[in-house]
């Protein structure tokens, strides 16, 4: 009997400990309450902001490449708002031009230094923009730090309207996704 009670007390102690850890983790995430018992991974939150979230090239002509690398128009800027180094992937839900192959050199993307250089694993030369759903997302920024004033990279876009592309407005949504490294 006494042996069983000891066993149950032991189990209760373990249950309370595990439950307390979970509760503290949640509380810390939701309130910001600083409790030293919480696992440090809680603070490793990846968050990004597009400080330049819209790029409009205006008028473009068939066969002539236009890029944001000359700052006209300015490129996308990805700011690490989190508290950990991050990788950032990029994808475009659909192609930009009706007569260009889905993924092609008519629509390209690369990383360029912002307030900090493009980190290891970044694509610093143009690659064809991945077209499609999340599965095609490709890392464009590697190891972007979070220290203030050294926490953003530019993402250049280059487009070239293909031969015979009909006149008119074209547009695309580009999704940037951050993950904690």
């Amino acid at each position: 009997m006494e042996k069983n009670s000891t066993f149950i007390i032991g189990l209760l102690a373990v249950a309370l400990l595990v439950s307390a850890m979970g509760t503290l983790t949640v509380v810390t995430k939701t309130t910001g309450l600083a409790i030293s018992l919480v696992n440090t991974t809680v603070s490793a939150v990846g968050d990004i902001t597009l400080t330049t979230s819209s790029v409009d090239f205006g008028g473009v002509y068939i066969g002539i490449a236009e890029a944001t690398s000359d700052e006209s128009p300015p490129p996308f800027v990805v700011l690490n708002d989190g508290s950990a180094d991050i990788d950032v992937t990029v994808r475009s839900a659909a192609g930009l031009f009706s007569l260009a192959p889905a993924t092609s050199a008519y629509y390209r993307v690369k990383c360029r230094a912002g307030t900090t250089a493009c980190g290891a694993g970044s694509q610093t030369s143009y690659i064809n923009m991945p077209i499609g759903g999340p599965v095609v997302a490709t890392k464009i920024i590697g190891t972007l730090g979070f220290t203030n004033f050294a926490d953003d990279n530019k993402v250049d876009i280059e487009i070239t309207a293909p031969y015979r592309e009909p006149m008119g407005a074209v547009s695309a949504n580009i999704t940037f996704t951050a993950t904690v490294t």
Partner: protein
Amino acid sequence: MGTSNTTWVAGLLVVAILVSAMATMTVVTKSTGFLTARVGTLGATVEATPVITMVEPAWLDFGNMTVGQIANATTSIGWGLMIDSQSNDDINITIGATALWTRSPYDITSAKYRFMCYTGGGRACPDGSITSWTNVPIGGSTLVTAYLNTTSRTTEVNFELTVPTDEPWGSKSSTVTFTASLA
């Protein structure tokens, strides 16, 4: 507490521990694998652009000719120079060239070197195109195909050569330049 009850309580506690541990792991996993997605927009406006490309072969070789001989490309060679429109709007095409003959006055525009938009090959020569023999402008340019549209995109230009009677023997060549503009 009987043995049966103790077993029950112990079992429930084990379940409680497992549930609690799973919840804790879920929170921790979410924190470490956190994903943030942001969507930017990209836009541009494709403008009307006059673009043409030459259809290969982009050269004509009339071979050996004798003074006074007349030849035209479509009968002597089988084809003229063909141009494809890669434009997204109607265009006009002009022609200009360097001199073919060296004997004056044939180094300037003359009836010894003529062109026309060729209608015989089923290519496009819309209204306004030059469909009768016209002197090739040397150092200038003149219209050859007008209002080439985005449906019938290929035009063919025929050439007629007449060797001047006092033209020195030897190889002759001329560079022909086609220029597109919006119609």
